[in-house]
């Protein structure tokens, strides 16, 4: 079942004409569904990490995270350096 979209209705009368104005908004259910989808993706990613670590041995767990952080730092420093050089 897709997300249920509920709306507020207001009836306005302008110059003897009746207008139906709707205000769509994010419902609590939509919020919960969005959260669930995001959590599902995060959970699957965690599962993949665990299974790949199991294949590579337990030591690989922190090592890969550190490598990723190190690579990211290196990239950032490089970008900063380039920005300074350009100035």
């Amino acid at each position: 079942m897709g997300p249920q979209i509920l709306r507020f209705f207001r009836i306005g009368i302008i110059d003897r004409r009746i207008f139906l104005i709707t205000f769509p908004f994010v419902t609590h259910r939509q919020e919960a569904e969005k959260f669930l989808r995001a959590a599902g993706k995060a959970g699957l990613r965690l599962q993949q990490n665990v299974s790949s670590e199991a294949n590579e041995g337990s030591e690989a767990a922190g090592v890969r995270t550190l490598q990723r952080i190190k690579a990211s730092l290196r990239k950032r420093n490089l970008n900063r350096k380039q920005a300074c050089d350009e100035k």
Partner: protein
Amino acid sequence: MTRNEKQWLNATPWESVLTLNKALCQAQKMEPLNDSRGYDAARRIWEPAVNRKMSIREAFDICHQVYDIGPFTFNNGNTFAAIGRTIVEDYLKAAPPLEAQILRTTICHYVVGQVDRKELHQVLRHFEPLLESLPTAGHAPSPQAKIGSGPQEQSAPS
């Protein structure tokens, strides 16, 4: 973000926790089973927390506590770590990727007991100025979503 008291678990009623665990078990072709002893205890902690205003640290504590009880046979860690991580995800979208990754990893590790409370608090304190300056990217419950206590039908105002 770290000082704000909010209904952090508002978008995750117990039914969503079950659905998430079921999905994760099915992804591994496992039967989503509940642990008869832990299930009720975990539910008793989780359900009142859903609508309660609390700090983000308290929300992580609840994820950790419920993980510790182990309401499910499989994927307790992945289920509650994913919830803990997703709670702050919208805040982290605007954060630098490296800091965001450190926070995500720390939160997940805290929920499953690989990082203690002191370490989590240190990391959160370190990133506090950054987190306070970030805009929320949508997940933070909208004013309409805060109204009412659960996923109930809303009627048009009279």
